[in-house]
């Protein structure tokens, strides 16, 4: 099943969401994903089981407008995005703006750093066969004597 994501620009967010609200769509969720150059936000809506998504990319130093003026219940997702990702969400409704205290974590914005790509697997190098060099006769005899001694011990 192919899922459709409508790409929109940040300044057009409120207009697009207002259209959705006037059409009778229910806000389902807002998802934030860290991408290398910023954040990818997906706003999902549903009306009579018709599931559709708006996609918005915000640069790392950018900010996004809150939609609590249209969907009050968006405060849950927006406060979470701010606390976990460090994304600047502006103009959240006064009565539900937690100002960074929605999740009180041990470190601020733990998702802010983009995930490290795992290193490619390293194949172990094939062992090279030992390079044979002509050994002096004396040494070879010593080795043989030692082997004989060992053989006698183990008997």
């Amino acid at each position, binding site marked *: 099943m192919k899922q459709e994501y409508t790409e929109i620009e940040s300044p057009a967010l409120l207009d697009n969401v207002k259209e959705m609200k006037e059409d009778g769509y229910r806000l389902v969720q807002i998802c934030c994903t860290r991408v290398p150059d910023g954040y990818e936000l997906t706003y999902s809506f549903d009306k009579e089981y018709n599931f559709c998504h708006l996609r918005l990319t915000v640069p790392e130093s950018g900010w996004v407008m809150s939609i609590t003026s249209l969907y009050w219940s968006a405060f849950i997702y927006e406060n979470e995005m701010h606390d976990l990702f460090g994304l600047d969400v502006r103009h959240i409704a006064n009565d539900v703006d937690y100002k960074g205290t929605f*999740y*009180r*974590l*041990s*470190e601020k914005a*733990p998702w802010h750093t983009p995930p*490290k790509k795992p290193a490619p697997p390293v194949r172990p190098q094939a062992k090279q066969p030992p390079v044979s060099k002509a050994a002096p006769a004396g040494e070879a005899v010593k080795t043989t004597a030692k082997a004989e001694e060992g053989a006698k011990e183990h008997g």
Partner: protein
Amino acid sequence: MKSFEKKSPWILHYDATSCNGCDIEVLASLTPRYDIERFGMVNTGNPKHADVFLITGSVNAQSLPVVRRLYSQMLEPKVVVAVGICANSGGVFRDCYNVLGGVDKAIPVDVYVPGCAARPESIIDGVERALDILEKKAKMLHDGRLQELQEMDKLPPMPDFSAKKEAVV
């Protein structure tokens, strides 16, 4: 009085960042099939009334002060039972950024009950062993060794999450 502490221990149960699996098994121990009330155990909400602290869940930054506060509000003699693998060592979540990993970093623990989720039989067994330890502590109290007991049960230093940050890749 001495026999009442072992025969009717009151339990304080707190969920510190648990997935609820172990908590519902703790509550299931109260229900007719496992019925810990036949051992005289009662679930209370007041830390001052409780003898046994049943704690589930790996501890996070926000529940850490709550756990330490509840523990320090309990009166001697008291025992702590860490229920479930998350309370023992962090479980599957030990690498998460917000998880301390093991209640024993926050408060002293007397009995560790493994399992994910820990079965009611294991929980009852764990509490029974805790009661033996409680009896020894009660004896210390009645022998006038309160200070020694308080020293044994004192809180470890406040754990630091920043050490966790370096370990977590």
